[in-house]
């Protein structure tokens, strides 16, 4: 439901069409909000503000209530998430061995801050307290894989493995 800046007309993406279909399916259905939000997140990968507005209008539920529900449940995300989630350990052992340098280098390569996601949605970068691999410090986890004994220079190579 983006608006084209040249013509001022509404531009509908295929995802917006899918959302309309979803809303049609749930029209008049009691307690539709959560299944609609789950469906919308499946469509967009997260819950964009425009989609929340549209849901609020179509289901006739105030935006504040929709936002309240979205932020109550841990399943919903208001920002896009990457295809690969990088968790950088900043526990004690990693901290002492330069975990922060690894973290900074990753921020530099990806161009995002803590909790951020790259524009191509390839990576989301998060810091965690400890992933329990202190013997491999400093270490990071990408999805389910643990990478340890890292130095800032080798990080590009590791990221290349994840599409």
């Amino acid at each position, binding site marked *: 439901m983006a608006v084209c800046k040249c013509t001022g007309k509404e531009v509908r993406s295929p995802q917006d069409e899918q959302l309309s279909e979803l809303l049609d399916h749930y029209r008049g259905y009691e307690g539709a909000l*959560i299944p609609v939000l789950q469906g919308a997140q499946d469509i967009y990968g997260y819950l964009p503000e425009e989609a929340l507005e549209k849901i609020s209008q179509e289901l006739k539920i105030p935006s504040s209530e929709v936002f309240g529900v979205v932020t109550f449940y841990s399943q919903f995300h208001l920002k896009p998430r990457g295809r690969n989630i990088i968790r950088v350990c900043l526990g004690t052992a990693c901290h002492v061995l330069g975990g922060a340098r690894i973290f900074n280098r990753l921020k530099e390569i990806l161009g995002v801050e803590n909790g951020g996601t790259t524009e191509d949605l390839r990576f989301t970068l998060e810091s965690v307290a400890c992933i329990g691999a202190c013997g491999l*410090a400093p270490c990071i986890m990408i999805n389910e894989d643990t990478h340890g004994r890292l130095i800032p220079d080798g990080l590009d190579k590791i990221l290349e493995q994840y599409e």
Partner: protein
Amino acid sequence: MSNLKTMRSKIEEQYKQKLNRPRIVVGLGTCGIAAGGNKVMEAIKGEVANRGLDVDVDFTSCIGMCYAEPAVEIALPGSASVVYGGIYPDKVPMLIDSHVVGKKPVMDLAAIQIPGDATPYKGIAVMEKSGYYAKQVRSVTSRLGRTNPESIEDYIATGGYAGIEKALTTDRQDIINEVKQSGLRGRGGGGFPTGNKWQFVHDAVGDKKYIVCNADEGDPGAFMDRSVLEGDPHAVLEGMMIAGYAIGADEGVIYCRAEYPLAIRRLNLAIEVAEKMGLMGKNIMGSGFNFKIRIKAGAGAFVCGEETALLNSIEGQRGMPRVRPPFPAHKGLWQKPTCLNNVETFANVPFIIRNGGEWYAAMGTEKSKGSKVFCLTGKINHTGLCEVPMGITMGEILNEIAGGIKDGKKFKAVQSGGPSGGCLPTEKLDLPIDYDSLIGAGAMMGSGGLVFMDETTCMVDVARFFLNFTQLESCGKCTPCREGTKRLLETLIRITEGNGTPEDIPNMERLAKVIKSSALCALGQTAPNPVLTTLRYFRNEYEAHINDKKCPAGVCPALLSFAILKDKCIGCGVCLKACPVGAISGEKKAAHSIDASKCVKCGACAPKCKFEAIVKA
């Protein structure tokens, strides 16, 4: 009605034929799949096709022996059927060679055998007499690991839908009386008598009534409901239908947590097939009774396991508990009278209706009848799912079913009832388990998760873990829970970090009592249980943390110190390389030492030492 009768005899005949054919069955519950069950399935199918064997390949759910996954059963007509454990794809050709082609079971991989009418093989434990199953009863779990959960035919052939068939020709009040007589109590943890609950909803005035099934199993260490949903979905549906008929509801909702995708898939499939066969939907079996069921997937909030929060979540709101009364039996879903029970409760109902309340009440203790499904996890030899009669002792579960504590270590405590329950010590191993005895001991039945802990577990750390969980999951609606759990957690963190003071113990006890008596819902009221039970049974550990600044189990990092025993160290240098912070120093072939000011207590060094020269204290 005659419809199902004619259908049943045909289906039973087909099922008999199915059992009379050579079969290889793979366990594909969530645990089996996580252990690689799908790959094993592929390997078996490939092997059977390549050799052109006349063998059926089928799948089932979890038989309960999670420790033995991936599990494969081989059944040849006229012989005992054998369940194998730990079958990875590379073992498949050998297994098929030996058992299917050569008709010789592979002894060292066989876990149990189920002889049926055939002669048992020598050297393989018969299921009912094997260590894991001897103390168990298999009633609500009887189909788990035995039938194909995605086949309604398997369900019907094993007595399925006979309960609703019988119920539809019975007076409603008689059904409720039967459930009352069975003594069945809510299996979700509260233990409210199911028959009484049904009576309330039956008697409540309302133009519309609902049945709601609570499948939002969120306790860490609990997976009973998941196993039942994945292994016997039709039993849950049938139980809900019987309840619906008895109380006068025509609609049911299953609230299932989104983290159980396989359970949701199998439930949806079961609903679809049952509707197609006229066993659900409009005018069921020509009786004029209508009942439909839909599934509502949760969205990730532990508190939604609380019944009124769950109802709010179904209605599309924030999952926060309501003030009771009014109770859901009078004003539940959409303010209509609602009968809300847990998965295991509903799954028990068809068995009770089929076999009678008296049959069920014959099992168990005076006040807690029947059987209960427990999940065994933690530091034990046999993790898995078991169903036991009420009144069994915790010691029998630990030593006979769970196979005792792992690695020859000593038992320290068992956590019953998840974050809402409590930790019971060795002295309580003789306690017969039922709802009331557990509450008397400071714990609770909960949904049935039992986490066993050994001597290397720090009880203060365990209390901190559970408080951290409840504090994160507190919905924030009432002050005692929102603020109280936070303060309890802060105190526990302070103690584990070595900054506790002697006043912390009485302060925590007082705060815990306030939370228990004033929180709005069960999540808050039970949240202090882990603190209270550990204080009751393991007070000395708290005192050691506070007064001596020591963690007796050697878990809390801030209270640990690592040292190298000079007479045992040969100076090999392995620990020196393992240390991530360069805190270990020493010449080759001379005793090393640890610089306490540099050590971050990560513990990486100790397991590396082959000479047990590194000690923590």
